[in-house]
């Protein structure tokens, strides 16, 4: 592992893993406790439309994915607030339409489309330094927003009606939360690709939740777990010449099932506290 660090791409990969772990820990925690996993998956897949747009108009990919993911997230926020009972269907439609748009725009784009697999399964080994700076800024914004509104977000996640009665601007915070989910998803796509993004966003918080006394601890623990998954996955993929994104997710998945097994030993039943 250590000799691998002499390569810039390896150092960048490690830094990218650590930086995205911040988003995974903080935003993943909100995704899990607010049960917006499906919605986040919708944003991630619809972001493929952004990749298509970027190709078609010759824009940088970051602009395409980030911009499109943000737009989709805001549309989903409006839809889920207006039509709660059918929100899952509408999320599913946006999920598929976004991807379809991406595929068609790529068909229409001239020339050979390079390495689309890297968007589906991530390309942690090809993160340029400029992307690291962008991740740093995005994480900074997320930490600032969550730090400032921590108590408000906690109340919103736990008991929305009560939060609103206490004067918390629940709608504004909901939009802000989904915007941050979009930013995180766009970052994580870089690491593990859009197909696997949900695993990295939800497995660390799911494990962390059981051992955390507060939302704050849950975020910290998820961050540490996410760091471990990306580092261990990266090392295994380097040592055995495997696809890095898939290896990272496999490490996370194995840990997920180990944690379920320990839970089973402790309580005698699976998902005993999942309600």
């Amino acid at each position, binding site marked *: 592992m250590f000799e691998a660090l002499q390569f810039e791409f390896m150092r960048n990969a490690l830094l990218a893993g650590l930086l995205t772990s911040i988003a995974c820990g903080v935003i993943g925690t909100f995704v899990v406790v607010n049960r917006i996993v499906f919605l986040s998956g919708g944003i991630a897949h619809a972001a493929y439309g952004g990749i298509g747009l970027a190709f078609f108009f010759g824009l940088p990919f970051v602009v395409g994915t980030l911009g499109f993911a943000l737009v989709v997230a805001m549309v989903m926020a409006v839809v889920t607030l207006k039509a709660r009972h059918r929100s899952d269907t509408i999320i599913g439609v946006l999920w598929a339409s976004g991807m379809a748009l991406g595929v068609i725009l790529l068909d229409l784009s001239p020339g050979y489309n390079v390495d689309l697999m890297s968007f589906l399964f991530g390309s942690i080994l090809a993160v340029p330094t400029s992307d690291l700076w962008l991740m740093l800024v995005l994480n900074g914004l997320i930490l600032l927003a969550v730090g400032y509104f921590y*108590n*408000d977000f906690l109340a919103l996640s736990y008991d929305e*009606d009560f939060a609103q*009665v206490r*004067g*918390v601007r629940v709608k504004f915070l909901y939009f802000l939360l989904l915007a941050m989910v979009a930013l995180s998803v766009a970052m994580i796509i870089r690491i593990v690709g859009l197909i696997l993004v949900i695993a990295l966003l939800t497995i660390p918080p799911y494990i962390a939740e059981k051992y*955390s006394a*507060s939302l704050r601890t849950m975020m910290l623990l998820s961050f540490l777990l996410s760091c471990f998954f990306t580092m261990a996955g990266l090392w295994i993929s380097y040592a055995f010449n495997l696809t890095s994104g898939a290896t990272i997710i496999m490490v996370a998945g194995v840990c997920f099932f180990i944690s379920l097994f320990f839970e089973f030993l402790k309580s005698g039943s699976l998902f005993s506290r999942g309600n």
Partner: protein
Amino acid sequence: MNDPIIEVRDLWFSFNSIPVLKEVNLTVRPGNFIALLGPNGGGKTTLLKLMLGLLIPDRGSIKIFGQPPGKSSHRIGYMPQHLHFNQSFPISVLDVVLMGKLRPGRGWSRYSHKDRMAAEKALKQMEMWDFRNRRAGELSGGQAQRIFIARALVDEPEVLMLDEPTASIDTKHQTDLFDILKELNKTVTIIVVSHDVGIVSSHVKSVACVNQQVFYHDDAEINQEMLEMAYQCCPVELVAHGMPHRVLLKHEEDD
């Protein structure tokens, strides 16, 4: 002093074009202890949520402390109905109660020492202080109910709005709870939603029957006519009339 705390005028509300509340008029004066009684689906919770500003009426007006709902929410202590959501949520009892001290635009500042003292007082009042470091999701139904009442009380509200506070607790604890509420009522106006006629009639000062329409009764005396109006669907038998009022329904409501 005797200005009404809550004034509802000609209020109409429908959900998906099905009328829920019609032509509601209700005035709540300070010091009152009023029960909103009625069958399930009669609109009790809806009326409470309208008063809190969580729902917007189709027609009519609501004034809380002379202002539209939502403007003076920090003077209201609220306990919602469904408390057994999200049992795996990582939050301690103390943090749940501190939520009652939340103020908009608080930003970076965290809960102060004063807030913590208030939370301690509220938890002690509800005899739940020993549970302060427990996970909220691990509590029994009755214990959970008490920490949510503590959360409603922590900011020393002038009005307490409780939605089905006795929903998941046994009869003994129901009576205990209403004894506590009666004590609190010396300083706080209380509005309580319930479908349990028996417990309510011996503790509250007035009753409003809610079944699409609202019939207000200035004392807690429950009479046959009132019950029939409120529970048109199920016949009600008034067994004994005196103090305390005992009322039996002909058949059990199955929740």
